[in-house]
């Protein structure tokens, strides 16, 4: 997670589009990855990430600096993402509220026995992250990929800190359990 400099932020708040273009380029990967974890589809994620950055530009004058800029930005992404996901689910008329949109996994991810090295294991674990319930998936992404603290995650997701800790522990437990299960299968072979 790269926090923009105070000078760059100040220029953006003054309406400097060139500065905001720099800021967007700096944050695009973080915003896009978070959007992807929410939406589960590259195209939807790109749309959400763009919408979030445009919204951030519009709301920037109201950013008071109570938290880090990135925390504020991720909160914008999450809020927009939750709304967009709900709309998408309504449109798709999914009966199960917890059902996830079809995530784009690598083809091999469905067959863990074919994992041979650390890189494949990493891909497998991330593919499993995509199958976690929304609340766990977001906590995992913010903690590991965006390197947010418990307090920052709590602020972004508007949850108590202890709930964030519990979600993270449950998510780690689920992932490790699946990975351990996978290893047991391989040992049995």
């Amino acid at each position: 997670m790269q926090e923009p400099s105070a000078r760059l932020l100040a220029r953006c708040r003054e309406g400097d589009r060139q500065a905001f273009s720099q800021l967007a380029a700096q944050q695009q990967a973080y915003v896009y990855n978070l959007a992807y974890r929410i939406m589960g589809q590259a195209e939807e994620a790109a749309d959400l990430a763009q919408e979030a950055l445009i919204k951030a530009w519009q709301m920037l004058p109201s950013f008071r600096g109570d938290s880090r800029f990135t925390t504020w930005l991720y909160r914008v992404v999450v809020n927009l993402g939750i709304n967009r996901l709900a709309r998408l689910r309504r449109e798709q008329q999914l009966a199960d509220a917890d059902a996830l949109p079809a995530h784009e996994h690598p083809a091999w991810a469905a067959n863990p026995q074919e994992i041979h090295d650390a890189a494949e294991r990493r891909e497998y674990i991330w593919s499993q992250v995509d199958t976690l319930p929304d609340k766990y998936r977001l906590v995992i992404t913010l903690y590991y990929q965006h390197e947010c603290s418990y307090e920052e995650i709590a602020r972004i997701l508007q949850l108590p800190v202890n709930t964030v800790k519990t979600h993270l522990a449950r998510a780690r437990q689920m992932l490790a359990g699946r990975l351990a299960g996978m290893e047991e299968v391989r040992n049995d072979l």
Partner: protein
Amino acid sequence: MTCDRVRWLLSLNPCTSEQSLDPLTRCHLEGCPACRSFQQALQWVDSDLHARPLAQPTAEFVPAVMRGIERSSQPEEIAPPFSRAFCLISAIVTLCALVAGALLLQNGVVAPLPGSDPVLASTWLNPIWARDASAWLSARNAQAAQIVLAAMAGLLLTLAGAAIGFRASAHGQ
């Protein structure tokens, strides 16, 4: 200590080192291969989740954002107060109202003279309210009453037409 309890404790703190575990947990791990396997998996989860590089959006991403900002900052085009459909419907209804008013003026609101044809007096062209209104006025003012009643009918029809036209144009937009 049960396996579930040990696994939950291990899951609570990412990147927990062996030394930071309490003696009971360490003791359980020494005697439980399944939990040791879980602990190993947990370490992989931690390291692999940290290690994944961020996916990059396409090169078009930032320019698309800037285009979106450009669009959003342009003043919105002020929509004309009335659509074409509204104007057309209003014109048609106004014309109808004028024609109806003219018909009423010519045929409808003439108070039947004593001894006139009772059949004609009871037709829709000569409604009772118009006759009563005319009768209420003096014979000298009968012509003025006819004009006022015709104008009121025309105005009511025009207003109704405008309301219908407005709704139609609102639906069309």
